[in-house]
């Protein structure tokens, strides 16, 4: 009998095992939903498939009676644009500060402790400040997403930059490179794929901050809708919305990973 750590599932078994937890959750939901609905057909907590399907149709495929727009589409567009702008700003700031902090001793001496302290501030604690300063509009939400994830991206990228072998930096100098040329040709090209890794890791937090901001003050967005529907116990809307957010997050992550593979082939050659 071989040890458990040495036993590998084959392709078919692996695929089946991958599906197993998902199927188990769905079956558990169906059983629980069935049980509750048989006691009380008007139960709202665990709606049946037909109720959920009707809610999806109402939110996604029929224009809203009051505004005439498709709510799911509108919510998705507002949320993704807030998330996109916030993450883009954080990536830009994180890229610049991270690389400078990792490479230039004077810059590190100035900002290392500062970004370290900044990253310890819970972003949600400053949300009221952001609302006071930037108002209840789009800006405060975008700023929360950016402020929430930028310190992580800066610190992550600074560490990655410091991990560039000292030999490479020395070698570049013996080839006559200035600090600017080293940044441009040696550090930035090697750090871009790491930056994408950092962004991927912080996307979960970005969604968290976005939905929190939308829950508190907003008139559209996926987080706004979920918290609005909570008042009506409308689980038939909330559950598909959560699934949709998960799908969006998963797709974003996958897209970044694919982009990294295609744009930075040197990382995956040979080894």
């Amino acid at each position, binding site marked *: 009998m071989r040890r458990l750590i040495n036993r590998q599932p084959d392709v078919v078994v692996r695929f089946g095992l991958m599906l197993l937890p998902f199927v188990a959750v769905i079956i558990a939901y169906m059983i629980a939903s069935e049980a509750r609905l048989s006691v009380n057909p008007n139960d709202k907590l665990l709606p049946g498939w037909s109720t959920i399907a009707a809610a999806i149709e109402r939110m996604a495929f029929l224009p809203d009676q009051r505004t005439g727009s498709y709510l799911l589409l509108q919510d998705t567009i507002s949320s993704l644009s807030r998330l996109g702008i916030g993450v883009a700003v954080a990536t830009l700031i994180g890229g610049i500060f991270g690389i400078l902090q990792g490479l230039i001793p004077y810059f590190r001496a100035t900002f290392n402790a500062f970004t370290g302290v900044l990253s310890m501030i819970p972003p949600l604690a400053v949300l009221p400040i952001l609302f006071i300063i930037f108002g209840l509009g789009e800006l405060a939400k975008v700023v929360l997403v950016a402020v929430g994830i930028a310190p992580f991206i800066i610190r992550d990228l600074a560490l990655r930059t410091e991990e560039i*072998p000292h*030999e*490479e930096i*020395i*070698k*570049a*100098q*013996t*080839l*006559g*490179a*200035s600090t*600017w*040329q080293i940044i*441009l*040709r*040696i550090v930035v*090209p*090697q750090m871009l794929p790491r930056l994408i890794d950092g962004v991927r890791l912080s996307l979960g937090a970005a969604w968290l901050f976005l939905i929190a901001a939308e829950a508190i003050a907003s008139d559209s967005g996926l987080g706004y809708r979920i918290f609005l529907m909570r008042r009506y116990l409308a689980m038939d809307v909330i559950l598909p919305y959560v699934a949709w957010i998960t799908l969006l997050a998963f797709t974003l992550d996958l897209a970044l990973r694919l982009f990294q593979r295609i744009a*930075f082939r*040197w*990382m995956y*050659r*040979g*080894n």
Partner: protein
Amino acid sequence: MTRVTVENVWKVYGDQTVLENINLEIEPGSFIALVGPSGCGKSTFLRMMLGDEAPSRGRILLDGEELDAEPSPDRGVVFQKYSVFPHLTALQNVMLGLEFVASPVMARLFGSRKRAAKAEALDMLTCVGLGHAVHKYPSELSGGMQQRLAIAQALIKKPKILLLDEPFGALDPGIRAEVHEILLRLWRDEGMTVFMVTHDLSEAFKLGTRVIAFDRVRTRPEEMKAYGATVTFDLKVDGKSVPPRPEIRDVLAVAAQ
């Protein structure tokens, strides 16, 4: 041709003396092999030659002038690892040295200047036997090929001094002999001074015109901190001479005609 003078150099980290009282006069065009046990400071000496570290006392002179306190293009280097840039192909790695000097802001060349740099880099890659692998990334090259690439990359700058820090330590013997031949040929052609740190005595005597050993003279435990390593052997290798300087070679060739 560059004369290297090392005057009374010491290197001290905190209260740990690593090197003490190193005095050397290096003939132009020498191939110096530095040997010694691990931790004897031969790599530290090489880093001081490189300008990566400064001597605690004493000074190092190139043709009578004190070394730059930071790495510069007059001193090329090949390390045991990480000498080439993983995100650039072999050709891009070699072209880099030409692009840095010709394009301060973009660090890239375009048009006819790019073609000229490319041709020069291709020549250099052919010289080290990598003419067939110019578009490969370092991770696709074997260890020996990576070191040959690192040599080509350093030599495109025509350094006065080439510093090698255990460059062939990770290569198997057949490959090593192959790279030795390439290195010896380039050294003779370019007329540069080479400093090579190695663990391998036979390699030191095969390549070097002069073999210098660093070691600690005082080895009692209580003396280990206060006393560093110094030059314990300094041997000219018999039957080997510094190759004639290129300008003298040209004069001789003209005279022969």
